[in-house]
């Protein structure tokens, strides 16, 4: 199993979602809300980099 993103991300507590529950991690991580599944900019860049690497091969 491999993983596209390996750079460490600083874990910063942010606003609580509900009492007693605090959000951690990358606030821009990809998720689906309703039928909309956004692709954050850093994910698009990761794919672009992979395609460039493939082209070089």
């Amino acid at each position, binding site marked *: *199993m491999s993983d596209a993103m390996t750079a460490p*991300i600083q874990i910063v507590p942010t606003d609580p979602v509900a009492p007693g*529950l605090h*959000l951690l991690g990358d606030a821009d*991580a*990809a*998720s689906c809300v309703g039928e909309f*599944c956004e692709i954050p900019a850093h994910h698009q860049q990761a*794919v672009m980099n992979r395609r460039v690497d493939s082209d070089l091969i």
Partner: protein
Amino acid sequence: MSEPIKVDIWSDIACPWCFIGKRKFEAGAAEFGGDLEVEYHSFELSPDTPVDFDGSEHDYLVGRGFPADKIDGMLDRVTGIAESVGLHYDYDALQHTNTVLAHQLIHYAKAHGRQLEMKERLLAAYFEQGRHVGRVDDLADLAAELGFDRDDVVRSLTANEYLDAVRADQSRAVEYGIQGVPFFVIDGKYGVSGAQDASTFANLLTQVRDEKAAVA
């Protein structure tokens, strides 16, 4: 020996980031190396989706108002990111459907101690194998492939045996304020939204383990 860390994951089947996020979480969990107790919970991103839709994912999204000229590029990018974590999405074969019965099947499997196996099977069936995951017979076939009693699965799904369990999961999601998935709740205290990097999951789990050890 320390207690395992509980990780509750809200997720849908028809959710490309949920499968990608599952792989990233699994990679992070492996990097963490400690004991985890993982439980999936139901979340319907689009509960008004019809069981049967005669058309491609592109057609479906156009019908839902997505700009036609951007859909193929978007699906290509998601497919590329899925490939980067070892998943082979096939949007040409994918059959868009309502997922409430699939969620009931996951609860059925949980009652038999095999929830994680069923969750994986349904995600792969939907995104990689073009299998239909919205009808009783198709779901029973998938369950039978895993060795479940097909007739009993048909009975359970037909009777909506676990619909209340699905709704209970969704109520908890509302209580937590969860609006998007995947969403991870670690040790009942920390919320982690989206398909995070594997190292982020590993760092979070390590942090939680250290906190638990400090108060023990």
